[in-house]
């Protein structure tokens, strides 16, 4: 068998150009298929793991999608806020265990600023109920004491090179070049560990800080002639009058349907409560069509690559008829020839797949920053889960593509090699 293997390798080497092209085609096809699968998987991960342990997200009545967008993904903005007294009224519901207000609207160099209470860091959960952890520092102090303290998500700190103790200023609105709050700098007191969720991109401050920033503002612009210095703000009432949304945890998760109905029926203001887990699943269901279309497309690309392999092997088989017949006449068994051809197909497919993995690894390193812009955390490294199944099926198909010429070689008349053809 070793001799046959060596012959097979030499024969393949003699046809290295053609096989090389096929190999590259298979590599690109498998890389593409793997990429689609990985983006799909990672997008879903990033998506569904972005929040957990929160039973309801409450906001002013609009679309649930919008509410999820700004409250969880920090994207877009709320058209309406809800009044603080509504929030206070809701949380009197005995079924509610905890509630954390969210105030959005400001930014820091393109990163969203979230005004929230220190309870947020205790209550928020992502992935499999994992709590937030501090890489360095501590949460900002509650109330007046921590009014100019900020906690950064890991990515904010990493991309902007911040450390605990640095001072930053915020910008009004989401535009990077919007009107500033330069007169009121914040001290970074803590940096969160990476979560792979929108939390990483967020700058966290207290609700009081948001009020303080806007004391001398009205209607989205600084009031002319009025400037309240940072050291003066503590004299003012800083408890927020309005919030953007609220996260709610229940004492008993099973009460969620009832509490949701109660909040939706709140009479003081038009509110809506969304079950985040349900919302994410439902959204993903609508995306499933896009998802499977992508998968089918790349599966087709693989099919084309493998059909190319089979076609190449079959075309080569005609040229190799003589070669195989010579081997037969010299004592090679049909099994040997079958092994040579099927082995070649398997080898080319395997090398193609390996090259595809390498290509993908390279590409995902290059594309990771881009994907992060889209909120997807591409996991580099070895294939996992579904991807092995995909790789195995590519290999199996490659082998099958080699079986056809292998079978033909088996059946090929020995006479080919022993009778000269002119």
């Amino acid at each position, binding site marked *: 068998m070793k001799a046959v293997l060596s012959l097979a390798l030499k024969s393949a080497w003699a046809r290295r150009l053609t096989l090389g092209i096929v190999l590259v085609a298979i590599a690109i096809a498998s890389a593409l298929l793997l990429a689609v699968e990985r983006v799909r998987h990672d997008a879903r991960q990033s998506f569904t793991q972005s929040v957990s342990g929160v039973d309801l997200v409450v906001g002013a009545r609009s679309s649930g999608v919008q509410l999820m967008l700004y409250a969880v993904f920090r994207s877009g903005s709320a058209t309406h806020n809800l009044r603080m007294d509504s929030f206070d009224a809701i949380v009197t519901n005995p079924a509610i265990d905890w509630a954390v207000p969210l105030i959005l609207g400001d930014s820091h160099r393109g990163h969203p600023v979230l005004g929230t209470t220190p309870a947020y860091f205790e209550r928020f959960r992502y992935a499999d109920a994992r709590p937030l952890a501090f890489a360095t520092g501590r949460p900002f102090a509650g109330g007046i004491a921590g009014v100019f303290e900020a906690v950064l998500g890991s990515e904010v700190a990493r991309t902007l090179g911040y450390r605990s103790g640095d001072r930053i200023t915020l910008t009004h609105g989401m535009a990077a070049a919007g009107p500033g709050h330069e007169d009121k700098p914040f001290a970074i007191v803590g940096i969160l560990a990476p979560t792979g969720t929108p939390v990483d991109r967020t700058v966290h401050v207290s609700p009081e800080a948001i009020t303080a920033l806007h004391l001398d503002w009205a209607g989205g612009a600084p009031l002319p002639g009025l400037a309240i210095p940072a050291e003066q703000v503590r004299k003012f009432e800083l408890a927020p009058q309005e919030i953007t949304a609220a996260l709610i945890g229940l004492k008993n998760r099973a009460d969620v349907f009832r509490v949701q109905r109660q909040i939706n029926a709140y009479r003081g203001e038009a509110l809506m409560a969304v079950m985040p887990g349900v919302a994410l699943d439902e959204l993903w269901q609508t995306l499933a069509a896009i998802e499977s279309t992508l998968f089918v497309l790349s599966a087709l690309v693989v099919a084309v690559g493998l059909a190319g392999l089979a076609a190449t092997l079959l075309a080569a088989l005609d040229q190799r008829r003589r070669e195989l017949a010579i081997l037969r006449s010299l*004592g090679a068994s049909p099994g040997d020839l079958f092994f040579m051809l099927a082995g070649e197909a398997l080898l080319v497919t395997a090398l193609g797949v390996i090259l595809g993995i390498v290509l993908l690894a390279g590409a995902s390193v290059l594309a990771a920053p881009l994907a992060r812009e889209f909120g997807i955390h591409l996991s580099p490294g070895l294939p996992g889960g579904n991807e092995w199944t995909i790789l195995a099926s590519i290999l199996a198909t490659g082998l099958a593509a080699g079986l056809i010429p292998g079978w033909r070689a088996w059946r090929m008349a*020995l006479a080919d090699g*022993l009778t000269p053809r002119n």
Partner: protein
Amino acid sequence: MAAAITITDLRYRWRGQPAPCLDIPHFAIAAGERVFLHGPSGSGKSTLLGVLGGVVLPEQGRIELLGQNLVALSARARDAFRADHIGFVFQQFNLLPWLSARDNVLLPTTFSTRRRQRSGNPQAAAERLLTHLDLAPPLWRQPAAELSVGQQQRVAAARALIGRPEILIADEPTSALDAPRQQAFIDLLLAEAAAAGAALLFVSHDVRLAAHFDRIVALADINRAAAEAGA
């Protein structure tokens, strides 16, 4: 010693043909005997070689090679028998173009244990044969496709000879060579067959090449089908 080849009552008919193209009551080649078989194109020479190689099965008759009836063997056993005991040289050289000259010569020893054992050290045997056949060592490592026609034919001869098979069959091996080289090649083949103690069946349409053989046979003389067709 037993005869190398004994054919008895052989009849072979191409599928769909009413008359047989081969009808040989008896034909034998002794061990070590060198026989020149000639006949015009289309007289059934290649078919006869196919029968002797076990590639085509006759509808009737005994084909004994070294005392073994080929017809009685299974396909697999025939394959093995052929690889073990017969060396072929063809009109077209049937070398693997991407394989070096020496590796081409070594091919029979990779598939036949018997040929490997009989060659002693296959590498050395291949190099000795190539040297005998006037191929200089620098050529040994060259891919067969890069050799000249004459060189390729000598590589093919060396491949047929390695592992000292008892029977050598050559089918128009000189037709691609020019006249002076034809005789030189035949002389080489004869000498090597003699050195290996192999019976040689040399088939050609060109009787002028027959000078140095032990025996010259016209296919028409042993093949009744040809005689009838001619009559």
